[in-house]
């Protein structure tokens, strides 16, 4: 089991409030009063599920970095 954690940031300038992140992973994401999504805590456990949420955002408004390393996880480096 990995204990790695991720910083998951929703870019509010891009977010068009699809609500898909909170709908598909409600334990990790929630919507604010404007309907924009954000991570429920400062860091989230690294998981396929969180990665899939970021990948499925239709406008790629969700960015992931390693909490310790600061390395970019999504969008993948070099893209």
């Amino acid at each position, binding site marked *: 089991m990995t204990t790695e954690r991720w910083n998951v940031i929703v870019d509010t300038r891009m977010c*068009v*409030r*699809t*609500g*898909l992140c909170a*709908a*598909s992973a409600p334990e990790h994401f929630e919507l604010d009063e404007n*309907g924009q999504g954000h991570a429920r805590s400062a860091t989230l456990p690294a998981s396929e599920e969180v990665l*899939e949420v970021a*990948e*499925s*955002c*239709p*406008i*790629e408004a969700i960015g992931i970095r390693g909490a310790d390393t600061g390395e970019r996880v999504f*969008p993948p480096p070099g893209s």
Partner: protein
Amino acid sequence: MTTVDTVYWDPYDPALARDPYPLYARMREEAPLYYNDQHKFYAVSRHADVQRGLADWQTYSSSRGDILEIIQADIELPPGTLIFEDPPVHDIHRKLLARVFTPRRIATLEPRVRAYCRRALEPVTGAERFDLVEAVGAEMPMRVIGMLLGIPEADQPAIRDYTDETLGTDGGGKINHEDILSTDAFKDYIEWRKRHPSDDLMTELMTAEFEDENGVTRTLTDEEVLTYCSVVAGAGNETTGRLIGWFGALMARYPEARRELAADPTLIPNAIEEILRFEPTGPFTGRYVTKDVELYDRTVPAGSAVLFIQAAANRDPRRFDDPDRFDIHRVTQHMSFGVGAHYCLGAALARLEGRIAAEEILERFPGWDVDWDHAELAQTSTVRGWKTLPLVVEGVR
């Protein structure tokens, strides 16, 4: 005190197709909450109102559809028609498709999309005149959607003609709801696909396991798979084709922008966004009002139909500087793909197809004009764009 709405907007009036924007401007200023007494619907046109409303599915529901005459027909809609659903069921169904339409998965299609575009342009290369809609707009999106769904190439035109006919309302008529809900076009394929699985969307939909709204883990029924395929085909063909038509028309009207793009194709993605803002192929979206709402000192009663006019919101001076100016350098967050739970699933695909078509057309034809006398603009109750757009190519003898 009585006030009289002097503005009259009839979304079914074919005469409005050519230039609806002066009327939209009047609606934004004089009737930000508009009521049409003849067709019994409300409409909002300001950017802030359209944005707020489309994001608020609790108040403005999709459960009766997103097309005015379908909402008012009050008919039973089959499950899996995710355009016609609200969260949480909508999100369960959308998630199944979202995996296939992520920006990254769509980006991997680029070589195949470009090949379809080149093949479509081959017959007209060197021509001094051709119809852009016929050559590319009607051809390329059909091939791309057909490839995604796994429809054999020979059968793809028949599928396109079927869905276009369903959405077509020549002369400002209304859509027949029995047509739009028909899945006949795909019935033949599903049995065949079961025996011949492939890496296409239909196979993926038939095999994907998911937890449904009752907490049951299952795969989609045949009927649901058919509905999904019909939704994707209906949404992906004509809209994208019309985007390509608008590219051709706007580049003829604004030749300095066209020259800039031909000289520097890296500007094309932003230009596509501006084309989407300036001439959205889907000008408005309908919703069903679930509870009384106060808007501009009036009550919109529960049970009403309301149209959110994205084409008007895209030109709201409260949101965009000098909104009637076409500017390919503008940083634009238009409403053309919608907002909220129903944000266009195929947005990444439409952007990819628009960019590739622009690149390939500009490379072959650095300059053109349009034979406007023979161009034909059409507006149905869902889509607005060129049915025929004859290009006259510069520099061909």
